[in-house]
């Protein structure tokens, strides 16, 4: 314990040097750090949202809606196929994950079954790379009752798709706002974690995510608006206006053109009245359909429906053949911009629900950083002064190790790109207090050994030797608690667990290696018998 091999000394020095190298960019501004020559580390500590400001949102994708839509469309296909084959049926409806109906004549059962197996049953789910299976399973009964079930695999793959697609659409929407580096992660079965740093208007973010933005174009029945309790004729629905929830339109169910065919949307100022409008452009399929509908229905009204609300239902004055048009409505510049953005980014496959939101303003984050800095520096100074008072020269050596420890923590956090949170800073401050513990253990042990009459070198040797197991035992138990925090904690608490664990590792290293290096060096220079401890 009182021998330090040359390679050991070099290793300790090298680790400290690396620590300094990785920690140093944190002292620079982000811009200066990026300007460092390429061979130097440029990364800085990753600040958590509670320190840099930003929004953390936990979203849930409404998979029930996805499933319901899917079963509804399955029901539609079945209806179409049966009608096409002139098989008479009754009671066709979607319920849960199945479609049920009954063929009128039991002798049609086999024919219907083969037909459905060939058509709706033939499409497979799953990825292109396989792993798929049949989309549906069909059960029949002798009285002609049919139960067409979506299979487990079909349900799962549909849900997976919906989530992946949601992540993609969210990413596009956030990217459109020009926000830097959002983190969008799938979490668990039906959740998406969204972390957006440095956003000044979280409400806007929620507005952007609150709309599925499914846009469809429908013909209306009559151009007049109607009161709420109007009964819808077959094949039509009563939908509220987007501007005023008390105004309703009678809208035909059939979708003439859908938002999927849009290729661009921009907010502009309308030429006629100088109000904000959204100009859009279709792809060739959309343009053709749009042209057909407008050509055949001049003088009728054409409703633009977004998420079940009628944005506007203008009268078709002349055919629109170029594939582009404008949406007027009671837009402000902001709402026009947002609608354009949503249309460009595409529709979400299902509504999103915000389960959890944590938004921290930039000013609070900055306050927390400076409070954390003051507390760490003050804590460090207090401990350093105390160690000198308690252990004199040896305290100084422990303080060098403590300082090295701080640098190593900063370096490790930077290197691992772990996220530093406010509780994380608390973890570091706590480490300052506990880091000297290893040294205290060793020094107290050395004192005891010296008191027992051992000469200086032997006391130091025994002190280290005996204290080390205790140090390992005590640090490992704390480490167990930190691990549990890491696995079960979320967000900031995880950050606390990370800094605490890193602190434990670096403080053991600094106490056992760095302090010892100085103690040994001092012992060899002053071949004294009395330890100044």
């Amino acid at each position, binding site marked *: 314990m009182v021998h330090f091999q040359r390679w050991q000394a070099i290793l300790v020095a090298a680790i400290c040097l690396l620590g300094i190298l990785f920690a140093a960019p944190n002292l620079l501004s982000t811009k200066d750090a990026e300007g460092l020559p390429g061979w130097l580390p440029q990364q800085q500590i990753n600040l958590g949202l509670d320190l840099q400001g930003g929004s953390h949102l936990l979203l849930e994708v409404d998979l029930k809606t996805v499933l319901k839509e899917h079963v509804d469309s399955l029901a539609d296909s079945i209806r179409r196929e049966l009608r096409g084959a002139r098989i008479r049926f009754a009671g066709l409806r979607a319920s849960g994950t199945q479609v049920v109906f009954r063929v009128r004549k039991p002798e049609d059962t086999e024919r219907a079954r083969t037909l459905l197996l060939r058509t709706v049953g033939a499409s497979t789910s799953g990825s292109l790379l396989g792993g798929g299976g049949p989309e549906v399973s069909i059960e029949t009964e002798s009285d002609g009752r049919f139960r067409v079930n979506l299979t487990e695999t079909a349900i799962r793959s549909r849900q997976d798709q919906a989530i992946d697609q949601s992540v993609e659409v969210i990413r596009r929407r956030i990217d459109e706002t020009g926000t830097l580096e959002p983190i969008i992660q799938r979490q668990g079965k039906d959740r998406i974690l969204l972390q957006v740093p440095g956003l000044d208007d979280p409400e806007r973010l929620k507005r952007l995510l609150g709309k599925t933005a499914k846009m469809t174009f429908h013909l209306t029945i009559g151009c007049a608006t109607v009161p709420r309790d109007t009964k819808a004729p077959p094949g039509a629905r009563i939908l509220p206006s987007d501007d005023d929830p008390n105004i309703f339109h009678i809208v035909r169910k059939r979708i003439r053109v859908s938002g999927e065919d849009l290729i661009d949307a921009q907010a502009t100022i309308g030429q006629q009245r100088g109000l904000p409008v959204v100009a859009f452009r279709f792809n060739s399929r959309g343009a053709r359909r749009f042209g057909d509908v407008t050509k055949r229905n001049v003088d009728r009204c054409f409703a633009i429906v977004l998420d079940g609300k009628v944005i506007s239902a203008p009268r078709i004055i002349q055919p629109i053949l170029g594939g582009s048009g404008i949406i007027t409505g009671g837009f402000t510049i902001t709402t026009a911009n947002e609608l354009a953005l949503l249309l460009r980014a595409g529709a979400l496959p299902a509504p999103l629900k915000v389960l959890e939101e944590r938004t921290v303003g930039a000013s609070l984050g900055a306050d927390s950083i400076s409070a954390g800095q003051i507390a760490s520096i003050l804590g460090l100074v207090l401990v350093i002064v105390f160690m000198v008072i308690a252990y004199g020269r040896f305290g100084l050596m422990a303080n060098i190790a403590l300082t090295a420890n701080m640098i190593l923590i900063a370096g490790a956090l930077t290197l691992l790109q772990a996220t530093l949170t406010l509780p994380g800073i608390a973890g570091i401050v706590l480490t300052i207090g506990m880091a000297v513990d290893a040294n205290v253990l060793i020094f107290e042990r050395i004192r005891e050994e010296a008191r027992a009459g051992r000469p200086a070198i032997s006391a130091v040797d025994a002190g280290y030797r005996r204290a080390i197991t205790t140090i390992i035992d005590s640090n490992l138990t704390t480490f167990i608690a930190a691990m549990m925090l890491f696995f*079960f904690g979320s967000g900031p608490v995880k950050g606390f667990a990370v800094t605490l664990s890193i602190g434990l590792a670096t403080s053991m290293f600094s106490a056992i290696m760095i302090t010892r290096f100085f103690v040994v060096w001092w012992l060899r220079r002053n071949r004294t018998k009395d330890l100044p401890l």
Partner: protein
Amino acid sequence: MALKLVPENVNIAFVKRRRYFFVLSAILFVLAIVSTFTQGLNFGIDFKGGILIEARTSGPADIAAMRTKLGGLGLGEVSLQEFGKPTDVLIRVEKQTGNEKAQIAAIDKIKAALGANVEYRRTEFVGPQVGRELIWAGFWAMVLALFGILVYVWFRFEWQFSVAAIVALSHDVFLTLGFFAALRLEFNLATVAAVLTVAGYSINDTVVVFDRVRENMRKYKKMPLPELMNKSINETLSRTVLTSVTTLLAVGALVVFGGQVIRDFSLALVWGVVIGTYSSICLAVPLLLYFNVRRDSSVPENVKDTATG
């Protein structure tokens, strides 16, 4: 030249006075339980669900006027309190009935009611579903951490040590919970972290003394156990006190300068360090006497030295 907080040949009869400590701990423990169950823990929105908004007004905040404004919104229980500065107000709104949409609508209503001259420093909302999950995660973190420590101490020492350590640790955990209940400090996710840190600190302290007990049991084969344990405590007392002081210095700096957001967290750490130190000395070691520790079954003598070689 060096300061000695604890005199060199200190000999305080901790073990002899163990019954006083046990009674003291029992009283504190009962108080903590009573306080936790009668007053209840002041659960933050992390666990309860609900809305928390930290707002900063341009001048000193007129909390009464804000309370009237928000009280009229029909959002259920709304509480306002000054937060660190006269301009800062912490607004808590209970969980809204209905789904998550209702919560978000409530946030919008509050922001509309307070008007434009308010800066929103923090907006948090936790839905009931997530709240429930966080309670369970916190609970499991706590239980598994204690269990992990139990197993480790068992592995490194003997089961008697491990049981004594867990009794002392549970004492610390409950007293910390009681501290939160009695002072009405907010109990949130960060608090769970604080409680686990306290557990970590306390076990750290306990293990150091246990190590010495084990060492002395090999060294002094004939010494009666109570005397041996008291000797072990006194031998490590200087270290225990010094480390507690350095930790308290650092955590104290955190309480005073660390900012309002983590003040409760830091206070819990201060309390925990004091309680953890006390329980290691006055509970964990004396408790060993009641668990029939055997001298000969300790880890073989040479393991320690060869392990560090």
